[in-house]
C-alpha cells in the first residue's frame, strides 16, 4: 500500500518561498511506472495541477504554465521523497496543497497525500 506523507509550514509570508516535502512509503521515487506530482486546491482556482517529476533512465520535470517561472519539484532518492518549492508567493497561492502519485501508463492519480493548508499572509 502506497502512502504519501506531506510536511511543511502552513504559513508563508508574501514574496517568500513555499517549501513542502512529500515522503513516499510503499513505492520508490525512482519508480519507472509512476510520476510524482503536486496539486493544489483553492475556492477560486479549484483543483490545479502544478507539476511532476519522474524517472525514465533520466529525470524529467514538467510544470504547469501558470507557475512555470517560479516552481521547482525535486526528487530525493536517498530518502524516497520529493519536494515542492514555489518562489515569490502571493496571497493567490493560498490553497490546500497535495502531493500525489500519477500512474504514468494509465494517466490518473491513484494515491494522494493528506493535504496541507498553506496560507500566504504577512
Amino acid at each position: 500500500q502506497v502512502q504519501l506523507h506531506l510536511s511543511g509550514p502552513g504559513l508563508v509570508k508574501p514574496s517568500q518561498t513555499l517549501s513542502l516535502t512529500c515522503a513516499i512509503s510503499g513505492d520508490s521515487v525512482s519508480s519507472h511506472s509512476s510520476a510524482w506530482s503536486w496539486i493544489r486546491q483553492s475556492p477560486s482556482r479549484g483543483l490545479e495541477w502544478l507539476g511532476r517529476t519522474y524517472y525514465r533512465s533520466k529525470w524529467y520535470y514538467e510544470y504547469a504554465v501558470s507557475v512555470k517561472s517560479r516552481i521547482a519539484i525535486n526528487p530525493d532518492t536517498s530518502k524516497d521523497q520529493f519536494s515542492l518549492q514555489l518562489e515569490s508567493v502571493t496571497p493567490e497561492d493560498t490553497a490546500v496543497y497535495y502531493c500525489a502519485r500519477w500512474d504514468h501508463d494509465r494517466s490518473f492519480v491513484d494515491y494522494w497525500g493528506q493535504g496541507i493548508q498553506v496560507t500566504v499572509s504577512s
Partner: protein
Amino acid sequence: QSVLTQPPSASGTPGQKVTISCSGTNSNIGKNYVSWYQQVPGTAPKVLIYTNNQRPSGVPDRFSGSKSGTSASLAISGLQSEDEADYYCASWHDSLNAQVAFGGGTKLTVL
C-alpha cells in the same frame, strides 16, 4: 476558468441515476484518457474511474464512466446519501506545455 467544463451542481433522490458531464477539446479528452474523482469536504480526492471507464477495486459498480469524442460522463446509479460529494474529471492536456487538466467540479446533492 477550468480547461474541462462540468456543471457546477447536480442532484437526485435516493435510488435515482445521476449523470455528470465533462466537456473538453481535441487537445485533452479527444485524445487522452479521462479519470474521475470523488471528494468529500475536508478530505483528499479519491479516484472513482480511470482510463475512461475502469473502476479501481473497492469502488462500487454503481459508478460508471464513458467517453465519446471530446466529452466524458460519470453515471451514478442507485444513488445513496453517502454519494453526496464533489466530483471532478481530469485528463492530460496536450499543448506546447502539456499538463493535467481538471474540471471545475460538480457538487452532487442527494435530496
